[in-house]
């Protein structure tokens, strides 16, 4: 009996410590996840990546919690897509989230209520990616815009470096979205 008790205690200690940590969250979120609007700058359209920006913006829309539509009025947009022709080394895209207060003042933040996301692709590196990788990249950035942080312990579209070579959000990403919203 003593041995059994000892064994159970050891197992109880080991199981939580060996469990894999799943999705990481910034601690912030959009207040209106069901009515998000995205706008695409002409720099993206002229570069031929309009469809990638559309895909990324709507990549999480199969969740009943997220709803995204395109707007052609930049002032109405939550997500704004831009393209830069500068070679930014190993960075091919990025995202900065902003909170806008009642006075219209903006603050860049991740653990706050989001109102705007500035999403940018860097063409010299982005153009070298495969079709799937470009779609994975735009979906990855929108994952950040929604509040998902990098996740490298389990399969996730929000991995910090490199590619899954899969353009779809993974089950851990959906779990993260469910946890946020």
């Amino acid at each position, binding site marked *: 009996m003593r041995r059994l008790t000892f064994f159970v205690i050891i197992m109880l200690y080991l199981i939580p410590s060996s469990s894999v940590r799943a999705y990481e969250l910034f601690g912030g979120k959009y207040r209106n996840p069901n009515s998000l609007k995205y706008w695409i700058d002409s720099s993206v359209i002229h570069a031929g990546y309009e469809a990638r920006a559309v895909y990324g913006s709507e990549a999480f829309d199969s969740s009943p919690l997220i709803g995204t539509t395109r707007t052609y009025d930049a002032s109405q947009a939550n997500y704004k897509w831009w393209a830069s022709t500068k*070679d930014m080394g190993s960075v091919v895209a990025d995202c900065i989230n902003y909170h806008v207060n009642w006075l219209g003042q903006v603050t860049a933040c991740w653990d706050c209520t989001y109102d705007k996301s500035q999403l940018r692709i860097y063409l010299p590196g982005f153009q070298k990616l495969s079709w799937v990788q470009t779609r994975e990249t735009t979906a990855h950035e929108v994952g950040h815009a929604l509040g998902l942080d990098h996740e490298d312990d389990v399969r996730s579209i929000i991995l910090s470096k490199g590619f899954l070579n899969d353009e779809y959000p993974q089950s851990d990403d959906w779990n993260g979205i469910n946890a946020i919203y």
Partner: protein
Amino acid sequence: MKKIIFLFFTILFLSACNNTQSELSNVNTKYVHSESKIVDEYNYLEEMENDSEVILIGTKKNGESYFDKDGDMVTGFYTISDVEIKKVFKNEKGYALNKGNIIKVMENGAFDKKANTMYGSAGYQLMKDNKSYLLFLRKSTTHDEYTIKGVYYGKVPLDSNHMEYKGDLNNSKQVNNKQIEKLNQIFEEARKKYRE
């Protein structure tokens, strides 16, 4: 004698005030990081060495930060830094890289002096003026400058054992402990292998 003692304590007091001032300004600096999609990942020093066109030791002399904005919102940023070459270890494509030359290095970070705000891609921290770094680089495909491999991987501080990297800004966990450990290991190996 009294005058000397008075002068000594006055200087001591003023320098203390000055230090406090600069520390306070550091404390008050706001850090904003962009969540970046990084294409290069290195598990070992050898991988980064093979992937770099240029490996050198240089001293940052100065730098200028640039921003793209949408109204008051920063959408993009970078810094072009002048780096004086001290020693070249690899120059795969035969670029003009001689000791004493100044090259331009694009850093994935920028400092907005007016707003006292530091912007960094994936937790990147700018090189410090007059400090030496071991740099793993490639030539930019669009400008006459070099880019750092793997954003923060290819910038190894030599004047300290610090990583000069912030992966935990604004409650974000850009990297986990395993990755910090890996980065530290690559830096340690690089410091041992490449010396002035």
